[in-house]
């Protein structure tokens, strides 16, 4: 065995030892470095971006259309308290009160990527809170019914009759809303205030004869 071969062998062995040492130091370093608590969920930058976007809002007409067409990926979530939920809610909605969105039983409904979840409450407020908390955790496909149930009432259940001067689209939207209201079991017609035509008596044309102006006395006698 030549001297060069022996030196080479020692060098190779030495390099393996150094590599092994580096690995131990790096792995041990992970154990020793000070730990800092990590924020859960998505990064603050992404969260801010999501909040600024208005893509999370779904209009009541759009929701009604999807409900009527029986969209299979639609899941309605009522974020109000269970008492309010029992009194009134949207068809096929499930109740996840704001205080229970992270409970073991109800959380899997929100933390999923199969359904488009529509959160709603009386107005936007509670649904927005639920959306923010859930989005912060990185949950996907969450939307908010814009204006909540109040707006649902104002548009689908009791749509406002467009004025005569309004565009054709406004009338089409109105008839869609009326039809949607009927689909959801509301007898729309009863909610309307009947306007009885008032019979006006024919107005007699009165021709008034212009009175002759008294002529001012001219001159004196």
């Amino acid at each position, binding site marked *: 065995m030549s001297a060069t071969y022996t030196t080479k062998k020692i060098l190779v062995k030495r390099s*393996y030892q150094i590599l*092994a040492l580096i*690995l131990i130091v*790096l*792995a041990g370093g*992970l*154990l020793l*470095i000070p730990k800092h608590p990590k924020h859960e969920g998505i*990064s603050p930058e992404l969260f801010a971006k999501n909040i600024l976007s208005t893509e999370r809002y779904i209009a009541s007409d759009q929701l009604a259309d999807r409900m009527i067409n029986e969209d299979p990926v639609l899941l309605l979530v009522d974020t109000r308290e269970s008492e309010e939920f029992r009194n009134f809610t949207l068809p096929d909605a499930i109740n996840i009160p704001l205080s229970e969105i992270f409970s073991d039983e109800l959380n899997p409904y929100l933390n999923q990527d199969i359904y488009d979840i529509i959160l709603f409450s009386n107005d936007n407020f509670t649904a927005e809170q639920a959306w923010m908390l859930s989005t912060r955790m990185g949950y996907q496909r969450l939307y908010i019914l814009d204006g909540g149930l109040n707006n649902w009432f104002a548009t689908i259940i009791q749509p406002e009759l467009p004025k005569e001067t309004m565009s054709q689209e406004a009338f089409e939207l109105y008839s869609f809303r009326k039809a949607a209201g009927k689909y959801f079991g509301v007898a729309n017609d009863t909610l309307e205030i009947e306007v009885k035509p008032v019979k006006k008596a024919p107005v007699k044309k009165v021709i008034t004869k212009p009175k002759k102006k008294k002529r001012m006395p001219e001159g004196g006698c």
Partner: protein
Amino acid sequence: MGPIIPNELIPAEWNFVFAILIGIAFGFIMEASGFSSSRKLVGVFYGYDFAVLKVFLTATMVAVIGLHYLDYLNWINMDQLFVQPTYLWAAIVGGFIMGVGFLAGGFCPGTSLCAVGIGKIDGIVFTIGLFIGILIFSESFLWLQPLYENSFLGHITLDETLNVSPYLIIFIFTLIALLAFFVSDMVRKRVKKVFY
């Protein structure tokens, strides 16, 4: 920050470009390291060559230590990385079949394609066998489905299951790997040398 594609730092279409580039690099390095030779690969079972063991354990260590440092620096979010789900009995049975195939054929699926790439006849025969195996598996899938799907344990990891710090597991794993290198070297020195 990372992973870069799920966080939309670059478009998802780049997935395929990266896959091809990494695939080419992986194949090239495997072939350059002699992994297209079935004799080198099965050396680990006969004790005359432990390159496979060393390469795979080193790769795992470098990846796991590197990823955790990146995670510590907030350059990558470990929670967003995909964890392969565990199907316990499917993994045990599949692992056994794979091991027998590896030992009998002298290749694993990746290295067999590497051998095909340089025109090795045993590699080509192995790959044909691999496709026959896929056909048999697909045709008998209904029969195998209970085994395939039943023992699903979810996306579990060692640190969560054992409730131990992942850093401690990495450190212990590093020590075990280095010990394995040392022991395998001792075994190799005692076993009769095979020239190939």
